[in-house]
Every structure is written in structure tokens, then in C-alpha cells.
């Protein structure tokens, strides 16, 4: 089937009006400073070499992408006014906006696009190396046309053009010198609605309004200040006192979110993570006995009380996961519930499976012992580990917890594979090719590469399904392939899917229109305003 989608060249003002249809137009007066809490402090402000979450929370306001996305995950125009995909899926032609300028006053042209994708993202961007692997060239017949040439069709690529994922860089700034240690790594220059002013380390980044933004009349806010506060209860206090206005991605402890939600001044939303779709999982080392036994793995999956974890560890901000693919993909037909590990008699089933597998309970009530390596990402992960420890104890599995720092843990799980169980949360991202394949495909068993197939489970069948889905342009066929993948992987259970995390984003009610896309606080806040 032939996909030609053509977006009407909608003017920026019209687009804004359309998105903001629900808000009363009279309230949108310019001015105000919005304070966002980002945790932890970003290591740098170079989103083209690092996809560390906090970086994007800052730089998505400074850099635009070629496209943005609606809550339905459909592309909307940004620096590209429109694009066209040839039927074979091997050529994408972007028509670029003509009035966009970088913060230093130089105009934005197709040369910048070619530089960004060919010289930077494809070479040094951690995900870009994979996402744009099929990209062979960017042709620039004129300053406002960029033609992407692909080796093979890559339908997922179209989901990766946001300012967060693929920021468009000015060639005249980043083009000279080594991009990996570029002087502007911490002084970002883009076309976005806010320009970078100052980064006082340990304290804040200050972004001021870009007066020459290509969307006339935008942004409304005068300034965005991104604050970094190391201690979680202090972050809560800052939000409570109105010293800060926006926080997301777990910056506020889940238990405090409930309390803050009760305040008249704070609004809580779980929207804005549709292109992220994080899933909390327990990774099982399928090469370690007894976890090489499928029955044992299934038994462990049954033993987890998902609702308890959601209620007591994430304080309600999640829903039970039904497989490797998030229910956020239901609209595109790629989601279906897998094997039901949440059945009412799950504990009995778990015990039965373990007996069957040949691990009877011994005199002390335990069948065998495992070590659980906790994700060193904060205290809820520790509590999660403690809850899992108690739940597995109920089916006779004795668990010892091990807590190491990030580097040590990553090395243990993804390089040395010296672990039994580890907790983690992985993003599904905008497409299963980007976020899901990495957990199961045999070509993703790569010692030293993190957040890939650490379970080291693979089968020729699932490899084949994924290879087909990668290049399959027909959404319906892709959907069917992925539903089959869900079925097979949840039966094999190399990974126990616990819950779909619903990050709460807290916004002070003085501010409106802050969360306007599936990228949430990775958005650019161009249309946010203060009442």
C-alpha cells in the first residue's frame, strides 16, 4: 500500500489556535516566568550527543524539530511545513519553513538539516545511530527543501523528528570543531521559542523569550527557569510554596503528588508521556539456573502482586502491564493483552508451576534463593525491591537485595550478566522498533550495551516477527505482527512486566497550556501562558 500523507501548510497561528481551542483566547496575555523543576541536573545541554532525560527537559525549549506530534501520535508541522513519503518508503521530502531564524539571527536552511542528520545525529546521537541507520543521504536541492534518502523503508523514523529526539542544529555554530567536545555543548543555540541565557550549575538554567520566534506572537512567557533541587522533599516543598510551577518524570515523590494534587493551586496530569510509555519490569537472567526454566519464570510472573506495587510503591500512578507493549499503542492496533499473570489464583498457579518445575519447598519454607539487583534510580525502586522480595517469599523464593550505584549495576546487568533478577523501567518510545525490539531481539544481546536484551532470551520466531515489522509499511500488518510478538514473549516470560508507569506531571494552576503534546515536559512551552 502506498502512503502519501500531505499536511496542509497550516499557518503557525492557526495551528496554535486549533490546539488551544479549549482555552479562552482572552486569557492568553504575554509575560510571566515559569519555574520548572528538573531532576537530576542535566550533565550538559547537548541533546545531540546525549539523550539523558533532564537534558531534553531543558533543550526542547531551545531547539525545534522538523516535526512535532499530537496526542494521537500523528505528526504536526514544525520547522518542516510539510513532508512527503514515496510509496517505497525510501525517500522523505521535507518542505522547510522560510521565516525561521536561529537565536544568533542567522536564517535556518536545508543545509542545517543536512548537517544535523548526516553529520551529527547519525554519527553521535545515542539513539540516532540506530534510528537513522538506513538514512544514506540528505539532499538539498534548494535552501528550503530537504530530501532524505533511505536504504530501506523505515516507517518508525517518522516518529523521531521532534525537537526532543532530533534537535535541528545551526551548522554555522556546531559545524566547526569536534562535535563531541563542542564549545557550545553547554550554550545551546537553536530556533526554539526560548533562547539560552545562563546556566548556574547546581542551581538553574535560565531561558528567555525568543522575540524573533517564527510563530508570530509566541511564546507568551517571558522566561523559563529550570531549577535543580537534589532533595526530593525539598522539591515538594518548592512546588507547594509556589516557588516552582512544573515538575514531571518522578521529580516529585509519588506519595507527595497525592498531597500536592489536593492543593487548590496545583493540577496533576498523567498526560504527556504517550511517546515515552515507560514500563516497569523485572528482568530475568534466562541463562542462570533456575531462571532458564520457563515454568520458573512464569511462576515468578504470577507471584508479583501488581496492584499492591501500584498502590504502595507508585501510589496509584500506574496500571498493571499486560505485556511488553504499552496500552498507549492500542489506537495504532499494536497492543493486545498477553498472558494474564494477574489472575485471581495467581499465587496457587505460581506454587504449582514451581512444584512442577522440580523445586519443592524445603524445610525452611523456601525452594531456592535469588539475588535481586535493585535499580539505583531512587527510593521507590528500593521499595519496589522490598515488595518483590516479600511477594516472592510467599511462593517460597528467598530473595536477597543488592543495591549498587548506576555504573556498577549497568555493568553487572548489561556487560557481565552477573545477576538473577533486576528491576528496571524501559521506554517503549514512539514506536516498538525503537523501544521494544531491544529487549528481545537476538542481535541486541550485546555485552557492554545498556538497556538492551539483558535477559539474553531470543528465539528465531520472534526475531523474524521483529525483522518483518521493522520494514512493514502497512499499519494493519504491523499491528498483527506485534500482537503475535506480545503473545510469544509473554508466554516465554524472560521479562516480567509489572506496570505501565503513569508519570504524574504537576503544573501550577496559574499556568495553562503547559502540557500540549505526547512529549509532555519534553515539549517547547511555546503556547504556555500565565493567567
Amino acid at each position, binding site marked *: 500500500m502506498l502512503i502519501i500523507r500531505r499536511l496542509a501548510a497550516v499557518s503557525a497561528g492557526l495551528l496554535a489556535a486549533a490546539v488551544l481551542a479549549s482555552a479562552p483566547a482572552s486569557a492568553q496575555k504575554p509575560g510571566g516566568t515559569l519555574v520548572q523543576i528538573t531532576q537530576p541536573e542535566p*550533565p550538559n545541554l547537548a541533546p545531540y550527543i546525549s539523550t539523558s532525560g533532564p537534558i531534553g527537559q531543558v533543550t526542547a525549549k531551545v531547539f525545534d524539530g522538523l516535526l512535532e506530534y499530537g496526542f494521537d501520535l500523528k505528526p504536526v508541522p514544525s520547522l518542516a511545513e510539510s513532508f512527503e513519503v514515496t510509496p517505497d518508503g525510501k525517500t522523505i521530502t521535507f518542505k522547510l519553513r522560510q521565516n525561521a531564524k536561529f537565536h544568533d539571527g542567522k536564517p535556518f536552511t536545508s543545509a542545517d538539516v543536512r548537517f544535523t542528520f548526516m553529520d551529527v545525529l547519525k554519527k553521535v546521537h545515542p539513539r540516532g545511530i540506530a534510528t537513522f541507520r538506513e538514512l544514506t543521504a540528505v539532499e538539498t536541492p534548494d535552501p528550503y527543501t530537504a530530501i532524505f534518502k533511505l536504504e530501506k523503508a523505515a516507517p518508525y523514523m517518522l516518529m523521531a523528528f521532534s525537537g526532543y529526539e532530533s534537535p535541528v542544529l545551526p551548522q554555522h555554530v556546531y559545524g566547526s570543531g569536534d562535535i563531541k567536545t563542542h564549545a557550545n555543548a553547554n550554550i545551546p543555540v537553536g530556533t526554539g521559542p526560548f533562547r539560552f541565557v545562563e546556566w548556574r550549575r547546581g542551581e538553574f538554567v535560565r531561558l528567555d523569550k525568543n522575540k524573533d520566534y517564527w510563530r508570530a506572537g509566541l511564546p507568551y512567557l517571558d522566561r523559563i527557569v529550570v531549577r535543580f533541587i537534589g532533595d526530593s522533599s*525539598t522539591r515538594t516543598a518548592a512546588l507547594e510554596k509556589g*516557588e516552582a510551577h512544573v515538575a514531571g518524570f518522578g521529580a516529585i515523590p509519588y506519595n507527595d503528588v497525592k498531597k500536592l494534587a489536593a492543593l487548590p493551586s496545583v493540577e496533576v496530569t498523567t498526560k504527556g508521556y504517550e511517546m515515552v510509555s515507560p514500563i516497569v519490569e523485572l528482568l530475568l537472567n534466562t541463562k542462570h539456573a533456575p531462571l532458564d526454566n520457563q515454568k520458573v519464570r512464569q511462576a515468578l510472573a504470577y507471584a508479583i502482586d501488581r496492584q499492591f506495587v501500584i498502590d504502595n510503591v507508585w501510589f496509584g500512578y500506574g496500571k498493571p502491564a499486560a505485556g511488553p507493549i504499552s496500552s498507549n499503542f492500542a489506537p495504532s492496533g499494536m497492543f493486545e493483552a498477553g498472558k494474564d499473570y494477574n489472575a485471581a489464583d495467581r499465587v496457587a498457579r505460581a506454587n504449582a508451576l514451581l512444584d512442577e518445575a522440580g523445586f519443592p519447598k524445603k524445610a525452611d519454607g523456601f525452594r531456592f534463593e535469588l539475588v535481586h539487583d535493585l535499580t539505583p534510580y531512587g527510593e521507590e525502586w528500593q521499595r519496589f525491591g522490598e515488595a518483590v522480595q516479600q511477594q516472592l517469599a510467599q511462593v517460597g523464593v528467598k530473595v536477597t537485595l543488592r543495591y549498587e550505584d548506576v555504573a556498577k549495576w549497568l555493568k553487572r546487568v548489561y556487560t557481565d550478566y552477573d545477576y538473577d533478577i533486576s528491576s528496571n523501567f524501559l521506554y517503549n518510545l514512539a514506536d516498538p522498533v525503537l523501544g521494544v525490539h531491544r529487549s528481545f531481539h537476538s542481535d541486541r544481546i550485546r555485552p557492554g550495551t545498556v538497556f538492551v536484551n539483558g535477559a539474553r532470551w531470543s528465539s528465531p520466531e520472534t526475531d523474524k516477527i521483529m525483522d518483518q515489522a521493522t520494514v512493514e509499511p502497512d499499519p494493519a500488518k504491523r499491528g498483527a505482527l506485534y500482537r503475535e510478538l506480545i503473545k510469544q514473549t509473554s508466554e516465554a516470560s524472560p521479562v516480567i512486566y509489572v506496570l505501565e508507569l503513569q508519570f504524574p506531571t504537576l503544573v501550577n494552576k496559574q499556568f495553562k497550556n503547559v502540557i500540549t503534546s505526547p512529549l509532555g515536559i519534553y515539549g517547547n512551552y511555546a503556547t504556555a501562558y500565565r493567567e
Partner: protein
Amino acid sequence: MRGTALLFYILRRLLQTVPVVLGVVVLNFLLLQLAPGDLATVLAGEAGGAPKEYIDLLRQRFGQDQPVIVQLYRYMAGLLTLDLGYSFRQSAPVLQLLLDRLWPTLLLMGTTFLLSLGFGVTMGLLAALWVRTWKDHIVSVVAIIFYATPLFWVGLMLILLFSIKLGWFPTSGMEDVVAFNEGWDRVVDIAHHLVLPSITLSLFYLALYARLMRASMLEQRGLDYVTTARAKGLSERQITIRHVLRNALLPVVTMAGVQVGSLLGGSVIVESVFAWPGLGQLAYQSLFARDFNLLLGIFFLSSCLVVIVNLIVDVVYVLLDPRIRIG
């Protein structure tokens, strides 16, 4: 005469500290090599996973593909020219990062130092003057409670009471980031933010100095020269101020020098509770990010800081005590 002697003494002491500081750096360098995992994996981890090519690229960039001895040699060679390397994680030269964070830490530590020393000495002095009265008991009990309370707990309780319930002080940070104050307003604003963290960090040391000062005062008051002073007809007040105080200060000065290192350690906790943008927080972050260049830089800087403060303390000691020979 004595001035030049003092200068030579300072120079000689500085020279003596060089091997100590270098030793600390080498020790830490080797210690950090023992840590499994490296910056490349952390960076890749934070990026939510990355291809192997990318991780190898990072390793090569960080010089981690070289043998340890080569890395050590390169680092030490750089150190001699005050080049502390580059923090790849923070994308900035280590020296610049350190200098950015140095002054908030110095501000916090300096304030704490003065607060704890000033109030501690005063409290100890008063307790000694009121010895065995109810006032002495109150001061002593307060001091020992401060001494026994975990730092972070005090910080949390102070935030709860003074920021959240009473709203007198800001919860965190070093200045109001919405207002962007300039000039005098900024000074007032920073001072306002400084109150709670410095009190939190001060309490323990205040208690320490108060107790030491009290004991030292009492010990000195039993010595013969005090009896001499009394036999001269001096009032107790004169005896205390002219004779006992200076003698009693000597052990407190020594202790204050010893405690500088621990003060830096305590600031890790306080900076984390109050989001104070200092070296302590930077150290904690860089440790978990395996940003070794930065961490080594922090160790280097804090060793220098400790050594310099110790030197200052020794100089103060020399000035206070004419018996110390510095020739």
C-alpha cells in the same frame, strides 16, 4: 624578624603539603580504578541505551581505552599545570566546574565555621563561667543534644518548621531564581537562603566547640597562673578575658582545624537537603555518574582546602602561642 620567620614557616609548610596532596590524588585515582563500571556505561544508561559503537566511541574519547598507568601519568602531568582534565559528562573543564561550585561551598563552610566557632566559644565560655549552675546545665544539655542529632534530620525538621509551617525562610537553593536580583538585593537574598543550611551544618560543630571550650576553660581555670592572676588582685572577669580565654582557645583552634575535612563531608548532606549548589552535591553526583575526572578534581580541591585551612590554623596557633618555635 618574626615576620620573615613566619613567611619562611608558611613556605616550608606549603612545600611539605605538596607530597601529601599528590599522594591523596594518586591514592584516589587508584581507588577509583577499582570501581566497576565506567562513565561510558553511565552516559549510555542515562541515554536510555545506546549501540555498542557509541559506547566504544565514548571510551576512546575519555581515554579509558588506555592502561591505568598511562591514564595516571596523563592525569598527574596535567595536574602539575593545574589542568584537572575535562568532565565529559558535564561537557566542561573540571577546573571551571569546580570554581563554579567553590564559592557556594566556601560561603556555606565559612558561615558555618564562623557561626559554630563564634557561638560555640561563647556558649562554652558562658557555661564555664556559670559552671555547676542551672544555666551551665542547660547549655551543656543543649550542646550534647545538638552533638547527638543526625545532621540531615535537623535539616528536614528545620525545613518543616521554618519554611513550610512558618514560611520564614526559603526551602532550598542559594537565591531566588525568579527574581534575578542584582547588587545589594542579591546579597540579602543569598543571606536569606543561607540561614537554614548554615544553621543545620553549624549545630554539630557549635556543640563540639562549646563542649571543648567549656572543658578547656575549666581546665585552664585550675592552673597555677590563674591563681597568680587572682593573687595579683585581678577580678574574675579580667582573669577570664585577659588570661584564661586565650589559653583556653588553643585546643579549640586545633580542633577547628581538624574538623575542616569533616565539615566538607557534612556539607554533602546539607547541600543535598537544601539543594545548595556546592562541591558536596557535585561530589555526590559525580560519584554516582563515575565522572572520575571531576571526582578527582573535587578530592584534589578539598585536600588543598583542608591543607590550606590547617595551615591557617597553624599560623593562628603560632600567633596565639609564642612558645611555638617556627625557626
